[in-house]
Every structure is written in C-alpha cells, then in structure tokens.
C-alpha cells in the first residue's frame, strides 16, 4: 500500500461541485493520491463524499485530506452497505457512484451496450413487445405506457422518424435526469438507440435545459465518444433557453424546430405528427434510461417490481427541507412517509414536517395525514395528487401555505407560453386574488373565486402548466385552510421576524 498511489474517488456531479468537490479533489492530488472523478452515489447530504477502497468519508473539505488519507477521519463505513444505498432497488441508477461517467471502458465493464446488442438481433416488433411487457410508463408525469407510444410510431409510415429525449427537467425538487446525464450518459444514449431500432428512427435529439451546463457538456462529449457504437443512429444535443413550458412535449418540439415554445393542440399526437411533422417518440429521460435494463433482462423482470399498474422502479428524488436528501430508486409501492421520515430523516431544520409537495411545481401539497399513500400513479390520482417526475419537496411547520399557493400561480404566470387564455390570464388573476386573501380582504368570497378560476384552468388549459397549477393551489387551501382564513397577523409578524 505504501508505495502504491492511493485511489480516491470523488464525484464530479454538479451537486458535488456546488459543495466544493473540485477543491477537495485538488487537495488529494496535491497530497499525492490518484483521483478518479466518478458519478454521485446520490447521498447528497454527504457530498463531497470521498471513497477510498469502498469506504466513504462524508462532507470532506480540503483540510480533511490528511486525516482521510491517514485513515483517522470519521468514516461512514462501506458506502455500499450504507442503509440509504443497501435498501434501494437500483436498476436505472445501478452504476451511480461506481463508474467514471465518460469512460467507455467502465460502461462496457458494467453491462453497457448489452441491451443494444440484444436489440440489434431482435425485430422491431419484438423490442416493442418487451417494452410493453415491462409495463414501463412515461416517467415525465403523465404515466402513459411507453410500449404503446412506441408501437404507434413503429406502425406510422414516413420517410423520417425521430427519437426525442425530454431532458428539460424544470420541476423544483427533481434532479434524476441531471444525475443520469452527468453520471451515466451512455445509458441514456443506449436507450435512445434501442428506441430508434424499435420504431425505425435514425436520428435522436436530447433537449436539455440551459440551467444544466454540466449535463450539457457531459452529454456532448458522450455523444461524440460513442458515435461509432450507436451508428447508424445519431444524436444531437439541443439546449433550451430558459422556458419551463418547453418541458411540455409539444412546446419542446416547437422549440426544437426553432419556434417559440408554445404548446400545440393535440391531436395530432407527436407519435403521428411530431418533430417537423414526422412520427416522433418523445419520452422523458428516465423512460429512455430504463430501456437498456429492460431489454437486457427482459420486460417481465422489470414488471416483477412495483404494484398495481405502476410497474418497475421509480427514482425518487428526496429534496427540500429534509435531513437526508438525495436519489432513492425503489420499486413502486413504498409509502410517502417512509421516504420522507424514515429514509429522509425528517426535516433538515429539525422542526416538524408539515407537508410535502410531490411532483414538482404542478404537484399537490400532501399533508402528513396522507403520508401513508403508496408511491403509485393511481393511488396518488385518487386523492387529487400526482407523482409527476417523482420529486418530493419537504416543508417544515414554518411554511406559509398561502404564500406557496400564491407562488404556484406566480410561477405559472411567469412561465405561461401565452397560447391559451385560462393559463395566461388565469394565473395572473389568481396572483391578484391570492394577494387579496393574504391581506385578509373578503377571504371567503375570494377563496370562491380561486376555486372557480382553478376549475377553469384545470379543464380549459391546453397543457399541464395551466391544467395542473390548480393542484398545488387547491391542495394548499383544502388541507391548510388555517393559513388562508383568519390569518393571524401576530403569527405573520413572527414569521417575518423568523425569516428576516
């Protein structure tokens, strides 16, 4: 050991960088160690997390380097045995923490390209049948069966078809797409290449939001490095321009075509008339990233995980005011309370959990009384909530739900594409009405107005932005009426004091 250089593994995921991983890596190099930059394990509260011979050292700073190398720093033990990791069922995130993201060698050594090789020996129909058998549903939030979408594109006749990966991960509380792009980019590329074989498309696009510069850089490099492996399929990386609504599939297609990111009315479905009017598979990144595993192991093996009509695993993102935040992939069926309290450890602030917003800015606020809910599309829908992209944002008891309801509407107003009236005007009018409620004016009457407005937005909007903004608003009012009615002005000033 003494003569050999120690191998120190540190993530180069954006989250680790944001917590100073580069400086720590430089300090290890200076101390004579060989540093390997790997993907993140997803235990975000421990970043920068150092791994030496399988053993982890959390929250490392440059000043800790000597002690870590000497073995005298406190460790978390073997990372793989840490309960947060050991209890997960990682299919999509099987490589997280273990490989160098851009190393083709690491990728191939960990089962990379097996799915693509298998798919090349299969008929297009057989690939689609495997995906159908897996029960995989769109991970962007809508939960539409991926196999059926693919079949529609496969059966469409056209001189050109496209595969589009929606990597416009704009929902607050979500980061799984980013982690795949930065940590395991070839897996996504492999999934897209398999989709190409399944439907007869030779060109793919990955549309990444501009707020993810590290993911963009990694994906660009990855696409270049493996071009020869996926040929004749080819992939182009496209960068969004700061419009949340482009995460909506038809807006995204417009944006790829060089247009304003305005929503298109459906039908026609993108599967029939998508990008440049051609049949297009447009899937969320996590949907496509699940494909290599499904083809390698078979659809049934994937479907063996999960509950009800929610098959397989879901990479849950535990975020917000939570003690142990990070990426937690598990079979559908785990309860929300298990995720927030047992795995997430409750709030980071140490105060009681008040609620969690599940599914991003368009998802409902779920009160602790409903934390028994299992992670399942239908179970959430039954109580007017949604899983969305499986982000959980935890709030403690200091949250002002009237302000959060106002923010949901403000966000919708800021990000509305302007095409349909319920969303464009409803959101702005909603902010005005919420301001009246917060000021304590005509509260009952104004709450009635909000309810009316929510109904109009929910049923009259063209896409999920206007259509789902009522979910956070109405759930906040329904479960936390005390924050809207008889707002206590003393509590108000206390809050102001706390946050000042």
């Amino acid at each position, binding site marked *: 050991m003494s003569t050999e250089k120690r191998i120190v593994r540190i993530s180069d995921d*954006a*989250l680790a960088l944001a917590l100073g991983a580069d400086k720590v890596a430089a300090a290890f190099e200076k101390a004579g160690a060989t540093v390997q930059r790997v993907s993140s394990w997803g235990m975000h509260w421990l970043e920068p997390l150092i791994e030496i011979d399988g053993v982890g050292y959390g929250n490392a700073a440059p000043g800790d380097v000597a002690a870590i190398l000497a073995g005298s720093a406190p460790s978390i033990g073997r990372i793989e045995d840490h309960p947060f990791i050991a209890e997960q069922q990682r299919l999509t995130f099987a490589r997280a923490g273990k490989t160098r993201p851009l190393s083709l060698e690491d990728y191939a050594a960990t089962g990379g390209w097996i799915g693509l090789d298998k798919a090349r020996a299969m008929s297009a129909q057989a690939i689609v049948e495997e995906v159908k058998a897996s029960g995989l549903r769109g991970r962007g939030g809508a939960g539409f069966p991926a196999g059926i979408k693919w079949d529609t594109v496969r059966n469409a006749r056209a001189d050109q078809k496209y595969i589009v990966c929606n990597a416009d991960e704009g929902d607050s509380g979500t980061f799984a797409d*980013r982690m795949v792009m930065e940590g395991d980019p070839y897996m996504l590329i492999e999934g897209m290449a398999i989709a190409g074989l399944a439907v007869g498309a030779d060109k793919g696009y990955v549309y990444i939001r501009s707020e993810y510069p590290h993911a963009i850089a990694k994906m660009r490099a990855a696409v270049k490095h493996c071009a020869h492996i996926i040929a004749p399929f080819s992939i182009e990386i496209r*960068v969004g321009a700061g419009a949340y609504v482009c995460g909506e599939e038809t807006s995204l297609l417009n944006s790829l075509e*060089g*247009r304003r990111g305005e929503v298109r009315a459906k039908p026609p479905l993108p599967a029939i008339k998508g990008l440049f009017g051609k049949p297009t598979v447009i899937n969320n990144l996590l949907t496509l990233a699940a494909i290599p595993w499904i083809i390698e192991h078979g659809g049934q093996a994937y479907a063996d995980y999960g509950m009800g009509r929610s098959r397989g695993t879901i990479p849950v993102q535990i975020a917000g005011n*939570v003690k142990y935040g990070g990426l937690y992939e598990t079979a559908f069926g785990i309860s929300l309370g298990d995720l927030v309290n047992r795995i997430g450890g409750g709030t980071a602030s140490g105060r009681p959990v008040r609620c969690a917003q599940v599914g991003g*800015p368009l998802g409902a606020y779920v009160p602790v009384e409903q934390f028994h809910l299992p992670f399942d599309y239908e179970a959430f829908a039954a109580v007017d909530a949604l899983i969305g992209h499986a982000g959980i944002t935890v709030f403690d008891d200091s949250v002002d739900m009237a302000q959060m309801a106002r*923010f949901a509407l403000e966000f919708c107003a800021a990000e509305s594409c302007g095409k349909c009236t319920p969303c464009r005007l409803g959101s702005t009018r909603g902010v005005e009405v919420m301001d009246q409620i917060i000021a304590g004016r005509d509260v009952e009457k104004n709450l009635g107005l909000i309810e009316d407005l929510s109904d109009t937005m929910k049923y009259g909007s063209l896409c999920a932005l206007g259509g789902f903004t009522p979910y956070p608003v109405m759930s906040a009012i329904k479960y936390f009426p005390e924050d809207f009615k008889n707002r206590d002005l003393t509590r108000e000033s206390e809050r102001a004091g706390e946050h000042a």
Partner: protein
Amino acid sequence: MTQEGGIAEIVVRHQDGKTPARGALLPILHDIQAEYGHISEETVRELAAALNLTRAEVHGVVSFYHDFHSKPAPLPAIKLCRAEACKARGVEALVPDAERAAAGRVKIETVYCLGLCSVGPSAMVGSDVHAALTPEKLNALIEEAA
C-alpha cells in the same frame, strides 16, 4: 458593438443539410448570445434573411425565451434559485440582504431550479454552481461578481 460578419459564419456552422434550416434557430441564437452578449435588431434582420423567415418570426423567438436578450446586460448576474425546494430551505430569508449588497453592482436574477434541490439554497454564476448558501457565502459571491 457590431454583430455583422460573424453571423453568417455562425449560421453556416449549424446547417446539416438534412433537417429544415430553421430547426437550427435556437443553437444559432445561443451562439450569438454567447459571442456578443445580446441579439441586436440588425442580427434579427440578418438571421431572417439567412433562414428565409420573417423578421417577426425571429423576433418572436428571441423575445419568447428568457435566455435571449435584445440588449447587453448592464451588470454581472447571479442566478439565485427561488423555486419551491430552495424556498423550503430558506432562500427567501437571504434575498433582502443580498439585494441590498448587490444594488447597482450585481443583478440578482431569479431562476426556477438548478437541480440542486436537496442542498439548497443554490445559485449559479456563469456555469459555476453553488449550494448550501448562507448569508456569508452569498455575500462572497456578490463581492466576487461585482
């Protein structure tokens, strides 16, 4: 600052001869924005001609997206996330002091989500990301950017 000359070259760089020419409009605009810091009226005119679009169409795209600006930004910017997960972790409490410290020197821009939602509040300067912001850390970022 003039943007002429360079534009034609940027347009050519983005044509692959397979997909319709206008499909490259966003990548072209990104390159122009990165190179010149804004997208001038003259550039809009030139792009419209090069891609066989109307000026209104190009202007419509430039004005739709938050990342494109028709005028150069007068101040350096810090993008501070103020979406739900960062709110849950206390970003709002940082804002008043940060805005006071930045006044006239740095623009505190609001962004909605940098994907660092388990370790917020977070911010981005250029393409550098920063998380677990405290008043001191954010202040240091402001001083650095100013």
